[in-house]
């Protein structure tokens, strides 16, 4: 600690240069924090389907390929399957494409049996939903976000499904009620969801009739879920519609992977940023040490050993990188609510920021070591001669 004032003062020897270097590292770590948080969120997704007793069955080759609705009865007949329901990806937005809506056509009875006690829906609104063919249950957060009210007619634009009647992609729903996730950890995953009737959807669409996107199953004994999944898939083996049954969270991962390897893309961006930062910061540190050659030589004349001089330069590098990393990561932490709003339905975790501190130490060592070694090897007589 007694060397801290010396290290701190040395760090700020050229204030403008230190501030710009610090800012560039801060920006890199801000980006690191944001991208790592997003990567973590994609790597640990919530499917909106809770519990170890849930399985999801999709087409074996792609979740974009549909399955026949008739498979539901066969799946239901598998021992251990308590309930099965079916859903199709509607791909909707409200007014503009940035207003993504997680709209799902559901079979009301089987859906709420699979997701027993997972949603809070006022009883009168559930009755209204069952009794209204074009009715929709809207998550209360989404209702609030768009300023909708129960009783409103809301048009949703599907990016996939045209209507049989007029070829339109716009579907109009009557908001008859709201719902909320009973488990607070699922609130974010459900925040963009609109539920509407599968029957109306199936009859109204111009293609794909009798087909579904995926099946969701509730099993009686979660410890046998893997065995039940294998039995379901065995049912459809060698058929034109082979299936892949997996736990709900694995399904969420598969869903995300259809957009590409997001983790790889994010890491590639970070890699490029830190590669550039290595040169920038490394060059700055080297220049700073070169300018201080006579001062470092004087420290050696005073009795500072080669190792101590090396430690001083490394400590300076560490202080710069750690300070910038803490500021950058703190800023990225502050942006979490903004990202959460932008990436609707994604759960963000601050724990994704912690590896940043390790990266800061590694960066400090990589950029600090060459100038520190140079300072350590400095010949006092030669260094002082430059000044004489």
């Amino acid at each position: 600690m007694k060397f801290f004032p010396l290290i701190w003062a040395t760090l700020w020897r050229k204030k403008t240069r230190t501030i710009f270097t610090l800012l560039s590292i801060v920006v890199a770590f801000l980006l690191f924090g944001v991208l790592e948080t997003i990567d973590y969120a994609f790597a640990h997704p919530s499917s909106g389907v809770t519990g170890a007793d849930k399985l999801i069955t999709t087409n074996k080759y792609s979740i974009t390929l549909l399955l026949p609705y008739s498979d539901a009865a066969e799946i239901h007949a598998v021992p251990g399957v308590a309930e099965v329901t079916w859903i199709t990806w509607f791909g909707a937005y409200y007014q503009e494409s940035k207003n993504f809506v997680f709209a799902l056509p559901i079979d009301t009875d089987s859906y709420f049996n699979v997701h027993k006690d997972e949603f809070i829906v006022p009883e009168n609104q559930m009755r209204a939903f069952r009794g209204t063919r074009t009715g929709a249950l809207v998550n209360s957060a989404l209702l609030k976000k768009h300023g909708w009210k129960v009783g409103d007619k809301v048009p949703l634009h599907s990016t996939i499904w045209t209507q049989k009647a007029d070829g339109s992609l716009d579907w109009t729903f009557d908001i008859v009620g709201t719902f909320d996730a009973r488990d607070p950890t699922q609130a974010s995953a459900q925040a963009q969801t609109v539920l509407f009737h599968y029957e109306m959807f199936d009859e109204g669409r111009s293609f794909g009739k009798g087909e579904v996107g995926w099946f969701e199953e509730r099993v009686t004994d979660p410890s046998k879920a893997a065995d039940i999944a294998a039995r379901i898939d065995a049912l459809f083996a060698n058929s034109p519609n082979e299936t892949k049954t997996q736990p709900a969270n694995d399904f969420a991962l598969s869903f995300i992977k259809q957009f590409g390897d997001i983790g790889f893309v994010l890491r590639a961006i970070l890699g490029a940023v830190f590669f550039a930062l290595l040169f920038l910061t490394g060059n700055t540190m080297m220049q700073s040490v070169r300018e201080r050659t006579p001062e470092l030589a004087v420290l050696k004349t005073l009795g500072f050993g080669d190792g101590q001089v090396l430690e001083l330069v490394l400590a300076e590098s560490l202080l710069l990188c750690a300070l910038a990393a803490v500021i950058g990561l703190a800023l990225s932490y502050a942006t979490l609510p903004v990202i959460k709003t932008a990436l609707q339905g994604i759960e963000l975790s601050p724990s994704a920021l912690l590896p940043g501190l390790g990266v800061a130490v590694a960066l400090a060592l990589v950029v600090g070591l060459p100038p520190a070694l140079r300072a350590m090897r400095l010949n006092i007589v030669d260094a002082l001669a430059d000044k004489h």
Partner: protein
Amino acid sequence: MSEAIVSMRNVVKRYERGKQTVEVLNGLSLDIPKGDFVALMGPSGSGKTTLLNLIGGLDTPNSGEITVAGQRLDRLGSGALARWRSNHVGFVFQFYNLMPMLNAERNVELPLLLTHLSGSKRKANALAALTLVGIADRAKHKPAELSGGQAQRVAIARALVADPTLLICDEPTGDLDRKSADEVLHLLQILNRDHGKSIVMVTHDPKAAEFARRQLHMDKGALLEAGTLA
């Protein structure tokens, strides 16, 4: 003044300059008694600074023996030499060589960072050294805020603060006006006479050399003559 603070026997120092070998000191022998104040004079390239660097443990000879403050320096490695310097020698340079980002007090405190003294004790000792050289009132000023004479006084305080047995001064007045130079030289004289510090000073200035007890003249890597002043 019979006990030698510096004793050199047959010291040879060569430098490689490209393919050429330059012999700067050729079998030099020298004794400087404890408590002496020696002015080392001579033309550029005569080997004064090389001799000073060897006495101060900043460089090592190619051959010969160098004993300073009872320690054979030619037998020490770089780590041991650094520790020896921190305990036994203080350096004063022509251009002061103060840390520009530290104030006078922090500059003087630097050698004490290598000791086990507490922060408060280090600060007290630094202020005492600044007081001794008559510049305690500028303790919180940075080098850029000091005149040349004041900066050199701070450098002398830094050289003194760890209570070394020997002061090595390389052209300490070379960057000062006459008045400031005389003040600094007078200060060195007081440190020698009243505080018993042994001083070896390189200078080109005959007037500066007059402040020393003895003048040694060098040319082409050898001592020419020695004279004792009153």
